[in-house]
């Protein structure tokens, strides 16, 4: 039990102190590459012997960033840019920025202009995920591989990449098992604890994170199942932050039993398929991803959420709508319609990492909990 608590505490500390984690890796003479949301080919970074570290913003009030982006720019991008401009990411050998939305397109350029001491490597994902699209992506990954090799001084061989893919797939599987087991222990795996277990993975060597989460999951499985008397919810959106929002959910007897958050399970639900050419395998993962940022006229995300609601007996859905996130905003009316058809209540909760006051969110979550 102590080991379980210690492991959860360790991941919480890492999730809440990514800067400390960066210093830790730098002190070990490791090179670290910052990875912007939502997807980057982290496996290439890993195979080049470097640490990929997620840059998911945080509660940084934009000051310098205001010279680059208007107030109606995505809060994650504002804070990530602010931290870059302030020098908080000093020590990173480069950043990877995917051009998955209009704001991210611009952030590649603002980064280049404002954070000259940390090189920027852009990543373009094809939206038509056809064979031709995937061939383009393979060429794109090839170019990125070369850039990363130049930074690390190490070749990314097929063997190394295949090994990195194994580590990432193992991590995905471990996170899925954790998410499933967590639902049997909603007393201990509160919304915030669950979030910290997920988020910490962005700041750690995936092999190390996998080992810890595996231990956590096993320890949980050895506990007796807890019968949760409160309500069960699914979270969808980019992130469910600041963490105080999750505390409010806990206070209102709401447990997170599944998520479709870009920062959390969207990262882990799609494995890299088997195959002979590792670089090509990476592209096939992109083909299979279900996300608001990947073109999909079927809007597969919606039946996926519906299935998760059913499979996890969720009583309601909280849509954590990142302010000014148009890819998510376009999906919302369709998700809302589907939930209405299913008779599942849905709460539209605006997310702003910079917001200090959470009084409105508190009232809305409380009312939602009462309604459930």
């Amino acid at each position: 039990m102590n080991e379980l608590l210690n492991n959860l505490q360790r991941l919480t500390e890492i999730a809440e102190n990514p800067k400390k984690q960066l210093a830790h890796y730098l002190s070990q003479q490791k090179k670290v590459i910052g990875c912007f949301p939502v997807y980057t080919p982290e496996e290439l970074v890993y195979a080049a012997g470097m640490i990929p570290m997620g840059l998911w913003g945080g509660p940084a009030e934009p000051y310098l960033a205001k010279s680059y982006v208007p107030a109606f720019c995505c809060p994650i991008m504002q804070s990530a840019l602010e931290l870059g401009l302030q020098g908080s990411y000093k020590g990173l050998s480069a950043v990877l920025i995917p051009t998955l939305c209009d704001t991210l397109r611009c952030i590649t350029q603002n980064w280049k202009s404002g954070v000259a001491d940390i090189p920027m490597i852009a990543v373009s994902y094809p939206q038509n995920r056809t064979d031709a699209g995937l061939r383009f992506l393979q060429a794109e990954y090839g170019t990125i591989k070369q850039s990363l090799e130049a930074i690390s001084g190490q070749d990314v061989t097929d063997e190394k990449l295949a090994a990195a893919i194994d580590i990432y797939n193992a991590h995905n599987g471990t996170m899925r098992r954790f998410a499933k087991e967590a639902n049997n222990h909603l007393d201990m795996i509160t919304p915030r604890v669950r979030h910290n277990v997920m988020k910490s993975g962005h700041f750690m060597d995936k092999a190390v994170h996998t080992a810890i989460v595996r231990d956590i999951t096993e320890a949980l499985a050895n506990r007796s199942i807890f019968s949760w008397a409160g309500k069960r919810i699914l979270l969808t959106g980019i992130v469910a932050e600041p963490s105080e929002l999750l505390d409010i959910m806990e206070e209102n007897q709401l447990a997170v039993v599944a998520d479709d958050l870009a920062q959390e399970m969207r990262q882990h639900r799609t494995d890299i398929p088997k195959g002979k050419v590792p670089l090509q395998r990476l592209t096939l993962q992109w083909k299979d991803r279900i996300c608001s940022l990947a073109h999909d006229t079927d809007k597969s995300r919606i039946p996926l959420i519906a299935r998760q609601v059913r499979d996890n007996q969720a009583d309601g859905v909280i849509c954590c709508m990142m302010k000014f996130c148009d890819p998510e905003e376009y999906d919302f009316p369709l998700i809302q319609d589907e939930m209405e058809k299913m008779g599942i209540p849905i709460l539209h909760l605006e997310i702003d990492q910079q917001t200090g006051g959470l009084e409105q969110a508190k009232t809305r979550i409380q009312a939602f909990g009462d309604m459930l």
Partner: protein
Amino acid sequence: MMESKADTVKAKEKKPLPKSRIMVGEQLTQLYQEALQAKARGEKIGWSASIFPQEIAEALGICIVYPENHGAGLAARHQAEEYLSYAESHGYNMDICSYARINLAYAEVLTAPGNNMPKPDFVLCCNNICNQLTKWLQNLAKRYNIPMFLIDTVYNYTPNASDDKVRYVRSQIDNYTRQLEELTGKKLDPARLEAVMRISLKNKDLWRKANELLAHKPAPLSGFELFNYMSCMVCCRGKESTTKILEQLIKEIEEHIKNGTSTFPVEEKYRIFWEGIACWPYLGHTLKTLRQYGINLVATGYVNAWGLDYELNDLDGLARAYIDLPNNNNNLETVVNRRIAAVKQFRCDGVLYHVNRSCKVMDCQQYELQRRVQESTGVPFTSFDGDQADFRAYSEAQYETRIQGLVELMEERERQIGEGVK
């Protein structure tokens, strides 16, 4: 003092429209009418993004209408409010592009004052303008359960498209051609495609020429007037009717140059570059405020917005053109260089940036663009908050104050130049 100038402007605006303007109106009415008639005959019709490779659909003889044009028209005629409200009441966030909100609401009701677009049988999307278009047309395709043909041009974070990217886009154009043939039962005639490409190239040259005639000092036209001809390039750039309109327009502009006249009704004291989409709901106010100070808008990003250049029958070249042309698909360096060139070519005294609330891809790198263009040219700038189609994002008072500020900066620069200050 200001009032009397404005009144003079008003009086002069009552002049009859030039022939080219009448032709534009007729062309647009015909476009929408033909789409309605085609639909009534049972033909498949499509809705398209504005910088989509129209050449294929045009060569196939398929009727295409353009929601961006439709939305801009409703906004300019102050008829957009009910569509915006409808979309927002159905879950679409106010943050979403106003053209999209108007169109997603229109898609539910399929009726509007003025031109109507019939229900689409497919949608054509090219995300060289923005990624929001992808999401917007995805929602339409899902709503109607119709095919969506997406030409994904992939953002150019380097100055030009790579060969890998061109191959990817070319493959999409081939797929879209084949699938559109299957859907409509029409077969692409290579000779007809060549003809459409030829017309499109000619229209591209004519559009550029018409715009570049405003480099003449003083300009023979009030630059705002060119906004009225944009529909030719958005909706009909593969049609001969556009050739006729633009030839007529050029004739009219050249006539002004020859006679030393201009449609700009007051003395042209300052010439400016307008960055961004027009503020359609306040076109009159934005125009009149500038005129009060003798400011003529002589250049916009639209000068080269449809400068799609390729060789006849070269579909790889066509793919490359659609990737490389739009500013929104390009890295900052490319856009900065284009703007610096335009400021110089059109001898601008100032730059006016429209912080268009709808368009993050324009706004989120605009501040650095402002700094770099000013640093290079020495030309002052100002910006104002507005929106292409949502009237709520614009403040007349703010616009007027900003223009006053710009005038002071331009005066100061003029004085310094006069005194030989570098």
